[in-house]
């Protein structure tokens, strides 16, 4: 009985969704003329990014500069998720003294391969978030790549421990850098997260004003937070 009702509900929802999207033709140009007198929002972003921000990647300019408050909210959501996981899976110290991650030791191939691959993966992640304003990439992508490198080391070695004190310091400093850069924009330019007037030339590493610095701070913060989440999750003891 429940199955029949659910299938009827799904058919109704599917019919209404399909009916709405028939009227939006795929691939039609809805931006309009980008050099017009009153352009649309997308037209304004496309035509004014090159002169005002001198950043080659338009998505980076939108995420950090034009819609910077949404990025601040996203960083806050990640921080709240990390705190929530740490508080739900909290263990008192007197229950279990010894926490071990692995039950079986890894083979020689995994151990020697992980030691070679870990610096290369970390270097790739740092490259991606430093060059976020020139190539596709940015803080979130680069931070995730670095966290994947840490995950490889955490799985392969039993004695590889991350220093919780140092990680907390890096995360707090990166978050405070973001806020202080925004307040500096408030003092200098009268807008929160406004860009400073002196920007470099297009397509070089030192272009875009404050945008690469903000993305570097976000990249460090995301990498450290995701490593912390994975470290907490891997230490749970399965009750057998």
């Amino acid at each position: 009985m429940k199955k029949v009702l659910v299938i009827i509900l799904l058919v109704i929802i599917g019919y209404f969704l399909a009916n709405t999207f028939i009227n939006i033709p795929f691939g039609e140009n809805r931006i309009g003329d980008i050099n017009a007198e009153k352009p649309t929002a997308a037209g304004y972003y496309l035509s004014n990014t090159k002169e005002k921000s001198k950043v080659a990647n338009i998505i980076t300019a939108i995420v950090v500069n034009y819609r910077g408050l949404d990025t601040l909210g996203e960083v806050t959501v990640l921080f709240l998720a990390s705190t929530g996981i740490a508080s739900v899976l909290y263990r008192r110290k007197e229950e279990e003294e010894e926490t071990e991650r692995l039950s079986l030791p890894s083979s020689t191939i995994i151990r020697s391969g992980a030691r070679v691959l870990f610096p290369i993966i970390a270097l790739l992640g740092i490259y991606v978030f430093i060059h976020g304003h020139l190539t596709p990439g940015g803080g979130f992508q680069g931070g995730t790549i670095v966290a994947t490198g840490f995950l490889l080391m955490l799985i392969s070695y039993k004695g590889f421990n991350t220093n919780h004190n140092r990680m907390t310091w890096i995360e707090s400093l990166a978050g405070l850098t973001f806020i202080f850069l925004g307040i500096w924009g408030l003092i200098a330019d009268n807008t929160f997260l406004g860009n400073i007037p002196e920007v470099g030339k297009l397509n070089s590493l030192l272009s875009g004003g404050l945008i690469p610095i903000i993305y570097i701070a976000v990249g460090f913060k995301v990498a450290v937070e995701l490593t912390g989440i994975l470290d907490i999750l891997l230490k749970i003891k399965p009750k057998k």
Partner: protein
Amino acid sequence: MIAVIIIIIMAVLLLAAAIYSVIHRDLLFAVLGTGIVSLILSLFFYLLQAPDVALTEAAIGIALTTIIFIITIRNTTRDEDEIIDKENEKL
């Protein structure tokens, strides 16, 4: 012509992997189905001219979501109806 064939094959693979991931009883295979959905979705994003979104979906959806699900399965049951685990406990 090749472009249309590629898009149709990818769409069919996407729906097949999603249905497999919902229906199958062993939870480990269902999680791998979710990983395959993320992989083909990342390729779809590249074909629709969005390289930033493709990078983000590839980095987060394939690696991190799969490993979090596998850690959860390790700490809970592996079978959907929990019949095999109860037999193991009785033995």
